[in-house]
């Protein structure tokens, strides 16, 4: 299957494709990833907060049934495989974007798949906050809203950053899959050339770029998380 991968002809041909398409694909991947992450956080963060504060002994206990419903929705969305979810949300995508194919359209299923994940990650981060600190804020007369925005979220910033980094890298790998339904980016290149046209070298380069992107996101995220954490003595 890979025998001719490094022959002179394939090399020149691949170089041509890389020159003409790769940079744009890279940009598309970044664009999709960033936009999808932003929306996932916008939706997932408040839900993650609700999952923590709405608990029986949280700072803003919510009705048990409501908590059950939120939990079930999050769990269902998290358990549907992304490939199937993409197809299932077609009607919603059409409603929002007007079409179900293309780069922008692929953002919708990404967000639907990622926000429950983000919600769980946020939940985990917020649960790490020392409950005694929350209680201290309560003893000062802080309202639940103030506790959320002035204690819980600021205190968990380093953990939130490292969790959102995990979300970004996951979304990045999902963008590769959305190439199947016409979403752009490195995933589309890999599928189009590698799977449909047997140009493995192009696919290989696309995959390497994806790996590099993950590494970059991860190191930036880890660096920021450590840098913002004032619990570490310096």
């Amino acid at each position, binding site marked *: 299957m890979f025998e001719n991968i490094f022959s002179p002809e394939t090399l020149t041909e691949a170089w041509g494709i890389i020159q003409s398409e790769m940079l744009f694909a890279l940009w598309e991947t970044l664009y999709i990833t960033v936009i999808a992450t932003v929306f996932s956080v916008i939706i997932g963060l408040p839900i993650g907060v609700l999952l923590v504060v709405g608990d029986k002994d949280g700072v803003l206990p919510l009705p048990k049934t409501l908590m059950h419903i939120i939990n079930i929705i999050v769990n269902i969305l998290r358990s549907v495989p992304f490939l199937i979810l993409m197809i299932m949300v077609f009607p919603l995508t059409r409603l929002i974007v007007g079409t179900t194919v293309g780069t922008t359209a692929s953002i919708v299923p990404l967000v639907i798949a990622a926000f429950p994940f983000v919600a769980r990650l946020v939940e985990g981060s917020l649960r790490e906050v020392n409950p005694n600190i929350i209680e201290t804020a309560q*003893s000062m007369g802080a309202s639940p809203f103030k506790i959320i925005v002035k204690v819980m979220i600021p205190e968990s910033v380093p953990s939130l950053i490292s969790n959102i980094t995990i979300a970004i890298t996951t979304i990045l790998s999902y963008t590769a899959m959305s190439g199947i339904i016409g979403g752009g980016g490195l995933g589309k290149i890999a599928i189009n050339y590698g799977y449909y046209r047997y140009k493995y070298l192009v696919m290989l380069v696309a995959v390497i770029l994806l790996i590099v992107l993950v590494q970059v996101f991860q190191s930036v995220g880890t660096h920021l998380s450590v840098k913002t954490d004032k619990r570490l003595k*310096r």
Partner: protein
Amino acid sequence: MIEIKNVSKTFIVDGEKFDALKNVSLNIEDGDIYGIIGMSGAGKSTLVRTINMLERPSSGEIIIDGKNMNNLSAAQLRQERKNIAMIFQGFNLLMQRNVLKNISFPLELAGVKKAEAQKKALELLELVGLPDKAKAYPAQLSGGQQQRVAIARALATDPKILLCDEATSALDPKTTKSILSLIKEINQKYKITVVIITHQMSVVEDICDKVAILENGVVAEEGYVTKVFSQPQSEIAKHLVYPDYEGGSVVNADYGTLARIVLNGAVGTPLISKMTLDLNMLINLVSVSTREIGGVIYGNIEIGIEDKNAFEKIREYLKQYDGITIEEVR
């Protein structure tokens, strides 16, 4: 004044009821430094947390300056809590905020302007003796320094009451002393009522005017520290006051009679030496435990003597001293 009226608290753990507080009633006067002491699990934290309704009593009332805390709405309670500051064993500072921002945090909650809050925070930082730590983060401070910051933060909203739950339990003896004297200073300077929860006798001796001894959710004894510590009535109080209560240190030694000399006032004489010479009697010293409370010496000396006869002789002899009595242990 803080009135704790017939407060009970029942926790339900795995369907089992557990009474952490049973019908507790205490009055804490304005300006008091009031100690609440007891063994671990006695219900001290639970009791102090009912004062600001962090723990809702199952029954009974908390009345502060005539205002019933039980009946306040959530918003009213939040308002009232600004008058009741609290410090904790674990300091509970916001770890991602620097010292100055920690101290101005309660002011931020109260909607005070930033510049004003910062000015107040700097003043308080001065008061607690850490003027150069404004920009430091809690993780960069020692335990004692963190507790000072927590105290400054507690004072930010000019509270009338300061609740201290084991505020010095995580600190070494020297730091404990310095924190306690800071609390005393604050009590005198700002006329703040202080409630101190502790399991350390020394804390109560050092700064409390009054004390309540809590055992299994019940107030075993309460009153002025001098009184409770010099003449403990309840079993638990005797346990706390006499380290070797029940003759814990006496192992199979045949002293004939074991007696306890109770010091309840200043002693200016070398009492035991003088007594042995005067009575021409041999005495085994078993244990000595004395402490100074408000400039007067309290405590007890356990002695082993020959027999009941000797005991009577000593009793007669001690009549010449005010505030010194002897009682038989066995």
